[in-house]
């Protein structure tokens, strides 16, 4: 089911206002030296001209999420006397202005949290109640490589609607049933006449990206037998410069690793789930004090392995990377994960 509509540029403000009445609306906003998804308030100026610094991941999968509250009625530690207050979250959330790679990121997370025998209720509930409209990219940004990992600047996987910015307005295509939410408005005009322009834009955008990428045009999942993968010297050669911060994982639309902690104050507290990063020492630190991944080389190897080897192995060759390029664009020391994967796949140097 595909439906097409068109929104005039000057009507965008009015349109967003109507959308925000249907649920909690999140749009990319310039917060000063960064673009971030924030709740839409009347007068917020939406920023669509550059890729958001942070993906909208946190709207559906918050950086820290309360799972439940607890209270010890009498003495601390007596499990029989504990009161638990669950979190009920049925809010409708609408994301307008994600990028196709951001939506693709949700598809990667869905496999882990929803498409399994034991779905994660917290994520599933939020995901099912969310509506995502992605804005197609006209031009590649620094470090972009979505087409190399099976996506594309006009790809719609994970999105409910796809928006193309044309000169006079926005072409909005509903890609799922949920996507109708973005079209059921009086402001929306029929859009079929603009389809041709969109296809032209798409072609142009894909051409620009593949020219920009050059030899890095295609990245395949890593073969589990890749020899360099287990070679310590390989990682030393390429990752000595890594400073082991968590920027790459926290900015990644597909990274979903988390930690669960009880934050307690005397008699009451809450159990929260928060993002964790495989780039941190504490990620694998065991209670005994032993750490199987004590140095940055092993940690980075895990990150590459997870995205390009273990995940594809488990989920029918799907790479757990959407090619948004944020980890490259914003890395303080410009570590390029594409280069690392590319080097891994090269026949071994003698």
């Amino acid at each position: 089911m595909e439906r097409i509509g068109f929104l005039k540029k000057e009507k965008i403000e009015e349109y967003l206002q109507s959308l925000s009445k249907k649920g909690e609306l999140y749009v990319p906003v310039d917060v000063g030296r960064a673009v971030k998804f924030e709740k839409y308030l009347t007068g917020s100026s939406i920023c669509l001209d550059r890729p958001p610094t942070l993906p909208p991941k946190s709207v559906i999968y918050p950086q820290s999420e309360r799972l439940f509250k607890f209270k010890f009625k009498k003495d601390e530690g007596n499990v029989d006397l504990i009161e638990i207050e669950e979190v009920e979250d049925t809010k409708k959330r609408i994301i307008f202005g994600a990028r196709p790679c951001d939506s693709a990121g949700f598809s990667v997370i869905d496999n882990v949290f929803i498409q399994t025998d034991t779905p994660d209720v917290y994520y599933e509930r939020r995901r099912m109640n969310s509506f995502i409209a992605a804005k197609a990219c006209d031009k590649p940004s620094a470090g972009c490589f979505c087409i190399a990992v099976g996506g594309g600047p006009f790809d719609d996987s994970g999105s409910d609607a796809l928006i193309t910015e044309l000169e006079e307005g926005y072409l909005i295509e509903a890609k799922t049933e949920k996507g109708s939410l973005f079209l059921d408005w009086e402001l929306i005009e029929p859009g079929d006449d603009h389809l041709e322009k969109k296809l032209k834009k798409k072609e142009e955008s894909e051409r620009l990206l593949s020219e920009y990428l050059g030899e890095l045009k295609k990245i395949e999942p890593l073969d589990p037998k890749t020899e360099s993968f287990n070679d310590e010297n390989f990682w030393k050669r390429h990752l000595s410069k890594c400073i082991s911060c968590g920027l790459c994982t926290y900015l990644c639309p597909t990274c979903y690793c988390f930690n669960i902690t009880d934050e307690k104050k005397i008699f009451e507290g809450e159990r929260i789930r928060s993002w964790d990063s495989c780039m941190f020492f504490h990620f694998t630190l065991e209670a005994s004090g032993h750490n199987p991944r004590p140095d940055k080389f092993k940690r980075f190897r895990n990150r590459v392995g997870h995205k390009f080897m273990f995940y594809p192995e488990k989920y029918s060759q799907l790479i757990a990377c959407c090619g948004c390029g944020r980890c490259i664009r914003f890395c303080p020391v410009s570590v390029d994960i594409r280069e690392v994967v590319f080097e891994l796949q090269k026949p071994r140097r003698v």
Partner: protein
Amino acid sequence: MVELKEKISEVFRDTNLVICWREGFDPIHATPHFVREESQIEDSIFNLFCVHNLCVYLPFLKEKAGILVKGCDSRTLIQFLQEGLIRREDVVIIGISCRGIIDVGKLMREVLYEAVTGVSIDGDSIKVKTVSREREFQLTSLLADKCKICRYPNPLIYDHLIGEPVESKVSWDMAYEDIREFEKKPLEDRLSFWTKEIGKCIRCYACRNACPLCICRDRCIAETRDPHFTSQSVELKEKFMFHFIHAVHLAGRCVECGECERACPVGIPVKMMKKKINLEMKELFDYETGINVDDKPPMYTFKAEEEKIKEHEL
């Protein structure tokens, strides 16, 4: 550039490891380059995009190394030596007199993050070619903020020196004008400024890990569960706590290389907090970080009679 490579070769023969720069994934990004083989020397560069403070790796290296430092970076080495974090005989320093570097984040924002395919610098102007167009900027408009108020363009410690000495006309007062200006704001405005800025923090710890003087790294109290100094929650107060930890632990130690601010993906002016403390250190103890190897950081020592600290009356 020939001089640079010659110097690196010379040092490499002695150390078997030189930390320098090479071109990164695009023409406006340089990336740290660990030269461990003779053949890698060829890739080394020094240009306006060599923004990193390479000293960040030194305290954790278990081997002798050669290192390239700009004027500002060289202060880090002096601070390391003051605190006994490295041994002088373990480093061979190639100093570079520097006329300033480019704020790459700002440049990326100027071109709306469009992929850059080429750059050419001609005198005072810089032409940046992106996938869709070409733009020209004045170099001064893209200069990193720290370079505009740089008082140490020439390395303060080195074994080899590259480039002609550069003169700086910046005074102490000029360098800290921004802090004084900020302090003129009413208290509530300052709190709401930091609430907004620190509210953006995602606690990725890039500022901490990019900081050469944050040497706790894997043992940082912002992450340990015991003591439980910060919770995992993303509440504002936890973010504040982390930034206080970072600032307070750098009291009298921060050399203002600005790496924290540069590394921050969401653009929090992290360096301001440290500059404020440095300003106080100067006032209270007449101490400036990273200038003299024989100095002692003020928080590592005391005087029975403090000239500048008065008892506070209620």
